[in-house]
């Protein structure tokens, strides 16, 4: 296995990330919101090595269109545009947004969000399941933004989701991975890919999240709100890679006692 950073590792093979029959080359997926400028966004995406970038569906501002349209800044031949249903609070609304997104003509994938509460932006589980079932029937590859609950994740998989994306912590909070046990369990139990979406704040959060074995991470605010977004994007790229490699390498057991690293025999008498 040869890592993006150039590190060679013997006897380790990491199969590529496959979601809904599509193979992706990077395990880091990036949001495109909240950057200080479009130029900084593009620099950050390039530094991150991400292939999948998420976009939102919104009304065109009829008086001023050119600057906000993502298609003027991101080449859809170079990046995989993953539309989201962010801002939707009901299954019906999310389904409407997903259909609009698909009509743009790039792919059948949708990052499904059905939000249940404005203060926490936590998902509405019933709405998520309803929307997933309908969209799967219509041929969508649904990547469902979910809370970090195993049973919800299992139900989303049963409903036909192509991937489940539990949160590390609330969207835009930067609180990092609050429940590693939950994320690890979800990853172990699902057959479809499990990617963490939301909550990562800095590179160490990304690394420890990948060490749980998840298939990838989708992040936005941690990069967009960093003092130097492109530098943070580069850090995230390395952290995701490091965390993945550490997971594949298999960590040492945790012990409650010290074990010396140097020989106890042969001390000078």
């Amino acid at each position, binding site marked *: 296995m040869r890592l993006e950073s150039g590190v060679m590792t013997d006897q380790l093979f990491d199969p590529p990330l496959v979601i809904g029959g599509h193979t992706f080359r990077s395990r880091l997926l990036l949001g495109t919101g909240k950057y200080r400028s479009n130029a900084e966004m593009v620099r950050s995406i390039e530094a991150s090595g991400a292939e999948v970038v998420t*976009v*939102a*569906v919104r*009304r065109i501002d*009829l008086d001023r*269109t050119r600057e906000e349209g993502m298609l003027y800044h991101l080449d859809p031949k170079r990046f995989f545009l993953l539309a989201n249903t962010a801002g939707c609070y009901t299954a019906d609304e999310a389904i409407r947004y997903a259909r609009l997104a698909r009509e743009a003509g790039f792919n059948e994938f949708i990052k499904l969000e059905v939000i249940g509460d404005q203060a926490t932006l936590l998902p509405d589980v019933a709405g998520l399941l309803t929307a997933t079932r309908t969209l799967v029937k219509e041929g969508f590859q649904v990547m469902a933004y979910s809370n970090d609950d195993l049973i919800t994740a299992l139900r989303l998989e049963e409903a036909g989701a192509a991937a489940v994306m539990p949160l590390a912590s609330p969207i835009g909070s930067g609180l990092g991975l609050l429940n590693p046990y939950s994320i690890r369990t979800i990853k172990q139990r699902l057959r479809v890919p499990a990617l963490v979406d939301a909550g990562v704040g800095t590179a160490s959060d990304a690394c420890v999240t990948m060490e749980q074995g998840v298939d990838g991470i989708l992040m936005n605010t941690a990069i967009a709100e960093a003092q130097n977004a492109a530098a943070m994007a580069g850090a995230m790229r390395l952290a995701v890679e490091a965390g993945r490699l550490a997971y594949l390498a298999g960590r040492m057991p945790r012990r409650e006692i010290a074990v010396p690293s140097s020989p106890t025999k042969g001390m000078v008498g």
Partner: protein
Amino acid sequence: MSKLGLLVNGEPRQLQAPATLSDLLVRLGLDPRMVVVELNREIIRRGRLGEVALRDGDQVELVHFVGGG
């Protein structure tokens, strides 16, 4: 010549009749490849924009991709 009263992205707009959705996009200076069009909550495929005639009172949504997470 009569005028059509439309609601485009929630804003009242007037257009000279007869007019199609294509005419509306031209009038607004929008590139149809960058826009998805919904007419009275029904998505209209890009290839049909020139065929669909607008009627007085129509509600049109014109959406595109913006930055988001």
